[in-house]
């Protein structure tokens, strides 16, 4: 009996010692990882500064305009093209219809009629625009 207790105590002592050592190593590893992470964040922040400057350089209005002229057929908008009233947007679903996304499927039979209706209202509204 006494021997059992001794053995038990010895085994427990050994096991807990090993566990503590294991924990210590794990903590050390984590601490190193945290340190590395902090360093990484620091470096990333420095890199972000450079990237922000580069972004500003690349998107400076002058170069955007040059690229727009080269690659796009966009012109400066005229006052008529600016829609200030949201209800003027043509084909804009209203109320409950807004929830249904037709996606890329072919239109059902009901829809052409609706479009016509919108067309008409749109034309009516055009009369009011500038």
């Amino acid at each position: 009996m006494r021997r059992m207790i001794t053995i038990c105590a010895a085994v427990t002592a050994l096991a807990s010692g090993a566990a503590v050592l294991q924990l210590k190593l794990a903590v050390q590893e984590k601490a190193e990882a945290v340190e590395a992470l902090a360093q990484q964040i620091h470096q990333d922040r420095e890199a972000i500064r450079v990237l922000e400057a580069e972004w500003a350089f690349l998107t400076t209005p002058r170069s955007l305009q040059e690229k727009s002229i080269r690659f796009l057929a966009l012109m400066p908008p005229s006052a008529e093209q600016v829609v200030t009233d949201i209800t003027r947007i043509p084909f804009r679903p209203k109320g409950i219809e807004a929830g249904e996304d037709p996606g890329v499927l072919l239109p059902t039979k009901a829809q052409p009629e609706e479009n016509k209706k919108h067309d008409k209202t749109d034309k009516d509204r055009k009369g009011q625009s500038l």
Partner: protein
Amino acid sequence: MSATTAYQRLSLEGERKSALDVARNRLMVAVLLFFAAFAVMVVRTIELGLSTPETKQVAERQIVIPPVKVARADILDRNGEVLATNLETSSLYANPSKVKNPAEVAARLVEVLPDLSLSEVEEKLSSERKFVWLKRKLSPREKWQVNALGVPALQFQREEERVYPHGRLAAHALGYVDVDGNGLGGVEYFFNDRLNDANRTDEPIRLALDIRVQYALTDELEAAMSAHRAIGAAGVVMDVNTGEVIALASLPDYDPNDIRGVANQQRFNRATQGVYELGSTFKTFTFAAALDQGIATLEDGYDATKPLHVARFTIRDDHPKARFMSLPEIFAYSSNIGTAQMALDLGAEKQQNFLRELGFLDPTNIELAEVGSPIYPATWRKSSTMTISYGHGIAVSPIQLVNGIAAMVNGGRLIPATLTHNDDNWRQGQQVISQNTSRKIRQLLRLAVTKGTGGRSEAVGYRVGGKTGTAEKAVAGGYDRKALISSFVGVFPMDDPQYVVFALLDEPRGTKETFGYRSGGWVAAPVVKNVILRSAPLLGVAPKREDEGLYQQVALMIEE
């Protein structure tokens, strides 16, 4: 035998006794040692119990990320776009005492850095010193090439470089820095101490500028300047309700990233430093003063049939109607004769006080060191009163004019112009004219565009109001008829003024498109129109159909 055994026993006993003594002595030593150890532990326990607990932890719970250290704070625009930032770079230096063969090293170095002079580098490398700068701020590519030479005496010092990603845009507002990062112009100079404050380098300064509007303004001014072969141009966009400067342009400009060899003429800020006689745009202030102080009402009029003669001047109209004109007509057709007579009714003193109140007699208070002092006559004669009423004989900077116009249209509150983003700036304003007068001025400005000289600034949908200004340049002993300062100040939208747009061209020449005309209405008004068309959607001003009723009453008083 017995004696022998007795002796032996004796000696055995003696040996046993001494062994016991030794064991006991040793035991005592161990006991004492243990006692000492326990005593130390007891003392330590008591000490720990008495002392305050230490807060030190084995592992730090707070993770410290080393902050990004820069030597100078960034400058941002109102939307957070980077206008000026510090980036890391390397500077090349050498330790000449370690260079064995200066001529060879110099030759190889100049090969990769062609902008260095061979003789100079050789001289530096042959010197006896331990440290010489060879080149400041190398590009990463140059650094790599120098490293590839494999000369141990060539070394790099980490340094920071001020970078302006937008190049020339807003150069005059931003300014520039020297090689050590001290501001030498613009806000870089004005806020130098704040930007270099070691505790606040992570807090950027946010300017009121909007870089997109700045580009629209600069681009249009550049186009007009080359079309009319002008020697210079200036432009300002200001928020009338906060006094914030949304865009500030002066041409010719420079690239703050590389200020070597930039002429003074390029550094000159025409928008704040240059003072110009701005011509008829000043009539707005004469009208405001007369209407506000009850000298005249919109129903009054003046006789403009023939030129006025005063002292050695003759006051003529550029767009002569040669008849009696109502006040709205005088404004819309920009009659000098009518305005001068109104100024006489107003009187020199009131005129002077009004202009002083608007800040036209002192340099402006904007956050720039480059501000020009206005020029006006020391003795305010009758002729001065008359000429100043239409903008001759007084020279102010464009920013001052814009600031004054903003006060005329925003309900009469003069808000100091500012380059920093500050929503509370309007609180510093003070009332200079009544709300009612401001409303009348708005009507007059709108009609000057729809019916008068400013027609070419009409940006459809944005209800622009404005006033043209054309002045002959003052030269020694008079005016140069050939050299004009043509300007236009526009406000939009006129039913709820938000922004003032000002454009000025220095010595424009007429073109085929303008039929040879080079007045403000022909050369500067289209610039303002284009700037408004380009920037209004960016600034959130929606195009709208005009409410004609706002101007009907005054419009009826204008005859073609």
